[in-house]
């Protein structure tokens, strides 16, 4: 049996209560909305790109603790990364929360490892991945909205 505390770790609760990089980004050159029609979670991602890097990134919107904390942690982790690095982290994170690898190396995820508990809650994986899919789409296409369905 899973412990709820593995899902709602202190890092998650903290990032939900005081999300980092929250709010519009002045001078953003990419803006994309992510929407989960099933639960109504709605996040907007703001990006400033320079020299193939994510120079700055922020988000706003409403959602559950998992989706807000995930967006907060993701934006922290993405600052300064090249788009290629961002894609690698996206793929690794996806693997982490969808449990495609049995024994993830949590070390390499740093603070993002706090979201690993989601893998035990299939109904909540979409909450954790909403902002990630939004970022992935923002970096790889010129769509203006993303939905999880």
């Amino acid at each position, binding site marked *: 049996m899973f412990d709820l*505390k593995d899902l709602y770790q202190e890092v998650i609760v903290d990032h939900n209560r005081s999300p980092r990089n929250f709010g519009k980004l002045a001078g953003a050159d990419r803006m994309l909305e992510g929407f989960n029609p099933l*639960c*109504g979670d709605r996040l907007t991602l703001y990006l400033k790109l320079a020299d193939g890097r994510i120079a700055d990134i922020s988000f706003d919107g409403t959602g559950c*603790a998992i989706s807000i904390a995930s967006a907060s942690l993701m934006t922290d982790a993405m600052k300064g990364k090249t788009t290629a690095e961002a894609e690698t982290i996206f793929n690794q994170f996806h693997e982490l929360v969808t449990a495609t690898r049995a024994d993830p190396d949590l070390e390499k995820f740093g603070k993002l490892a706090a979201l690993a508990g989601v893998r035990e809650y299939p109904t*909540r994986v979409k909450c954790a991945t909403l902002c990630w899919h939004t970022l992935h789409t923002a970096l790889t296409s010129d769509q203006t909205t993303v939905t999880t369905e």
Partner: protein
Amino acid sequence: MTSKGTAARYQAGPPAFDVEAVRADFPILSRQVHGKPLVYLDNAATSQKPAQVIEAVDHYYRHYNANIHRGVHTLSAEATAAYEAARHKVRDFLNAGSDKEIIFVRGATEAINLVAQTFGRSTLKGGDEIIISTMEHHSNIVPWQLLCEQTGAVLRVIPINDKGELIMEAYEKLLSERTRIVSIVHISNALGTVVPVKAVIEKAHQRGAVVLVDGAQAVPHASCDVQALDCDFYVFSSHKLFGPTGVGALYGKQRLLEQMPPYQGGGDMIKMVTFARTEYNDLPYKFEAGTPNIAGAIGLGAALDYVNRIGLAAIAGYEQDLLAYGTAALQEVPGLRLIGTAPDKASILSFVLDGIHPHDIGTILDHEGVAIRTGHHCAMPVMDFFRVPATARASLAFYNTHAEIDTLVRAVFNARKIFAK
């Protein structure tokens, strides 16, 4: 009925209702979830099924499974008789005037679409108006939007107030000689509000409009009499009424059903087919093309027998007591706001909690074995009205107990603790 506001006080209710006896009829209630006894509080989404219903379906498949209305053999005759007996039970349950007025459909959603696409499509034209309310389920919004696109009719929406009640004065202002259809929920799934449908119907009839009542959430809680209401159409789903999924009923006044074109074409809905001309069958078969959900209808019949045996009056009395108890208990939780506080309410408790999103509440409660629904409840306009993205909703049935409400409230307190780090 509950009193509302922060000072809602619970006084133990009257009914000598043997809840343990009815619980014994529902096999699923003895299962565990995450090592805890299941506390099933998602009855508005779908209800659990008593053994009597499960056995009726099982018995049909084991002993007289056959297609209806077509075989001369014994099994077909038995299946036809059971299917038609179920129709008769629905007729009694709604107090309809005739079995011909009861059409078996897939559920409330299909019934509303049927009325929109047959009655609506054949009678409405550009500029005609359809009235619904802010608190409709999406299934009582989208079929009318489709009809509006097809005919040029216009959709009008009756507003609600902060308690989640229909604003009747606004409704009267919306009514005009352009109003053709009023389609209104009987009990709101998101708020629990009981809508005064009799008054709604009377006013619509004064303008010559036809009224459909969406009874999906009403039939498990209150008896309804379509003749006393004088509604033109009434719809419900079996699965919310302790019966199987995939079946439901449309009641329609015979005069209207006779005028309406068929919904779908196929077997059973015809009298005679040639390539030159097809003659439609009589009511109710005109609207039942193809092999219907025979087992489902028989299961629904068994569910109605079951509900009748307990009695809707006893059920309502017990549920109102539970509702009062739950309302008072939830209001003790700091930072909790009930969404839907109409004085006349069914046993539905929608709420939001400061600083905790409904989905997190849902996951935490699930860990305690408590099943509730979180989200927009297919009523996004209601969420918009109350300016919340979603709510947590506990919806109670007569097999729920006061102790289960205590478990719910304890779990909500636990959610606060987890988020108070």
